[in-house]
């Protein structure tokens, strides 16, 4: 009897723990996050995006799946050439970021990604979208840096923006490279809040630094 009571208590407490941290959620996320930084194809990102979307529709209170879906759209956008698809990717990224933001307001990581999504709108049609999304991208990035000055992805985004923006719109390749180097150093010391929190970008940052040489 004592023994079985113990079993019962164990099981009940197990359920309770599951309700709080859900090891299956963590596990699935960890599995999906494997190899994220080394993907180079649209198909690769699409598969990850789908997996995060599946987790997101199950774990409706978690902001990270929504965040990662948006990240996948940003990365696919960079590889996509079809304007109609790029447009759809912008819309999808915006949707998932809005959801992530409502689940976890004032998060530095979400703000970096929102800034990247705004830059996508500009690249889609610089003449038309530049005036609206240019200032928006800068404001979002500024907010991200305020929320977490040690976020290497924010510094990287700053570097990329400065590096790729034409000079007359405020770009500066020299300052851009400085930021990218600074971001590299920040990546080295960055500690994510958990195994499933954002910890990507070093490979991307190094790739751009390679171009900047």
């Amino acid at each position: 009897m004592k023994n079985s009571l113990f079993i019962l208590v164990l099981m009940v407490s197990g359920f309770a723990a599951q309700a709080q941290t859900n090891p299956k959620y963590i596990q699935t996320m960890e599995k999906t996050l494997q190899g994220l930084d080394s993907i180079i194809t649209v198909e690769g990102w699409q598969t990850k995006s789908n997996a995060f979307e599946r987790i997101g529709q199950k774990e409706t209170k978690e902001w990270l799946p929504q965040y990662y879906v948006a990240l996948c759209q940003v990365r696919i956008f960079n590889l996509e050439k079809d304007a109609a698809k790029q447009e759809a990717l912008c819309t999808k990224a915006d949707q998932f970021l809005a959801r992530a933001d409502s689940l976890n307001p004032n998060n530095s990581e979400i703000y970096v990604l929102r800034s990247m999504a705004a830059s996508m709108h500009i690249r889609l049609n610089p003449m038309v979208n530049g005036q609206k999304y240019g200032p928006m991208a800068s404001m979002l990035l500024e907010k991200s840096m305020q929320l977490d000055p040690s976020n290497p992805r924010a510094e990287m985004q700053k570097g990329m923006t400065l590096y790729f923006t034409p000079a007359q719109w405020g770009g500066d390749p020299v300052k851009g490279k400085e930021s990218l180097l600074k971001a590299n150093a920040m990546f080295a010391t960055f500690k994510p809040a958990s195994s499933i929190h954002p910890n990507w970008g070093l490979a991307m940052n190094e790739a751009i630094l390679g171009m900047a040489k």
Partner: protein
Amino acid sequence: MKYLLLLALSCCISNCLFAQTTIVKGQITEKSKAPVVGANILLRDTYDGATSDATGKFQFKTDETGPQVLQITYLGFDTVIIKVDLKGDSVVVNPILKEGFNELKMVVISAGSFEASDEKKVTILKPLDIVTTASAGGDTYGALRTLPGTQVSSGDQNGLFVRGGSGSEAPTMIDGLLVRNPFFASTPDFAARGRFNPFLFKGTVFSTGGYSAQYGQGMSSVLVLETQDLPDRSTGSLSVSSVGLGYGQQKLWKSKGLAIGGNINYTNLAPYFLLVKQVPNFTRKPEFIGNELFMRKKTRGNGMLKFYGYYNHGIVGLSTNTADGGNFGFKVKNDNLYTNLTWSGLLRDKWKINLGTSYSKDWNKIESSYNVGFLNADSFRISNSLTQIRGVATRFFGRMTSVRIGGEYQYLTDEYKSQVFGKSSIRDHYPAAFVETDLYITTQLVARLGVRAEHSSLLQQSNAAPRVSLAYKLGPGDQISFAWGHFYQKGDSLLRWKSQFQQIPGFQRAEHFILNYQYILKDRIFRVEGFYKKYQDLITTRQQLRNDGTGYAKGVEFFFRDKRTFSGVDYWISYSWLDTKRRYEWYPSEAQPTFAANHVATLVLKKFFPKIKTGAGLTYNYATGRPYYNPNRSETGFLTDRTPAYHNLSVNFNYLATIKKSFVVFVLGVQNVLGQTQVFGYRYSADGANRTTITPAAKRFVFIGAFASWGVDRRQEVIDNQ
């Protein structure tokens, strides 16, 4: 004890131990049988699912049991939901995905229509193109003259000359409301610019024929300008140029959804004319002062209330030698008022309502002298006014199909008071109603069917004009369109005919047939359009006033725009071939009218040099000679002479800079850089022995200016500090 163990056991069973596994598999395809790669297949509210592979196939295992919902999503396609019952073994599903709604993939009516818009994706031009085209000189009409179907060598008369039509056959609308006097006051033989600042408009639809039943009273075409909505921020602007000064300010109250602003502009060509010699002697150098006031307010029901008011005072006078050896003097003082109040919004989420009212008035005080003797010097006043209301209700069915019902009422007055000829005036009550549908039969095929009915109290006539357009999408980027319709128009000199013949002529009519092929892929546009137009009931004025004039116009036009081939270079080429004849007004027989050239070609080139922050533009306009009247010819030789061909090379440079917190553009523009002689026609002496040439006032026109704008809120600083 036993009971508890059982309980524990059952918990384990349901949790994981003896779970039943089902395999879900299948293949995802489009309607065309093409595999859908990368689609997301998931079991709702579970982690289970898969991504379709390169052949559209997928497979996954799940421990779920019983009835479940399988969801298949793919970007740009409609989501498919399938109910499945999982009881071990395997479940096979082969869903077919249907492409979702996408503006870029929808067929649009393109016959006869050029659109410049930021909001719509499939457009030929962007609003910014209007201000960066070298030959346009910042004038909307100048930019439109680089499109096929328009005449480029019409520097002697106001207006757009579209496909064999005169300037008065191409009316301008702002937010659906007619503008009676869209051009600045002008003197004979010198065209004036459009009154309205291109930055006021977020969209421009220029139809070169076969246009919507929403609009009337243009035998050739309509130009529909759509004013801006709420700005993103409060801004100020200042301009200093070789021809004048301008200042503007607009304030945005974001929380109230309200913006109020105004502009003041002063133009004076006296300093420029001192430096650059002009051929007629300008006894009064062109001088204009204008004010604009606007208000935009968001209202309930996603609505927008807009007011726009414009007032301009201008004066210009010249004196020129005539072929008879005399001297012709002309001076005009013009005052122009234009107001426009519109509301648009949704009614019960099903109807889109557009309401508008406008009042405008134009006053001209003219003094003319002709010192040869048989014509007297005169001083006269001409004024006109227009009061109008307009309402359109649009009901949407599904995503694209819609029905529009609307009506408008215009009250027009024209007055003339001369020392020599006395007084005369006319008034017209003009009601019109229309109904039109955009019927999407499939996403590839759309039909626009409409009819417009009009009545004029002055003409004592009514008409009904049917209009039809069809468009069919052939592939991802190309489509074919057809348009047909009847287009009625009152004569444009009714007051004159009334004084001369004590009679008012009836409606004139044009019938359009247009066939268009268009190919648009990112950064490249090709289009070709053929048309045939038949004129009927044109006004003739030989001895008697009649409505028995006839005519035709036919032609083929090409347009090609390319932003891709040469890195950083955007260019377009237009070519129009036109064959037209008409018998109207004083013409003895059908002849090619004086405002029509047979071949017109334009090249527009733009390039931005990021390193020096400079944009450069070049435009080359070419047109074959236009017919001119030579009194020495017999009636068989009527209008058979041609002016020399027209050439115009224009260049412009824009240098972008940031000074303090403001964004400054320095502009240098030169029209007719090469100084080629441009002849628009000739004026003969009474005996036909001598003639004078109608040319621009100076060979070249040089414009230098600086435009500064600044955002009053902090956003601009953010960019600057980055």
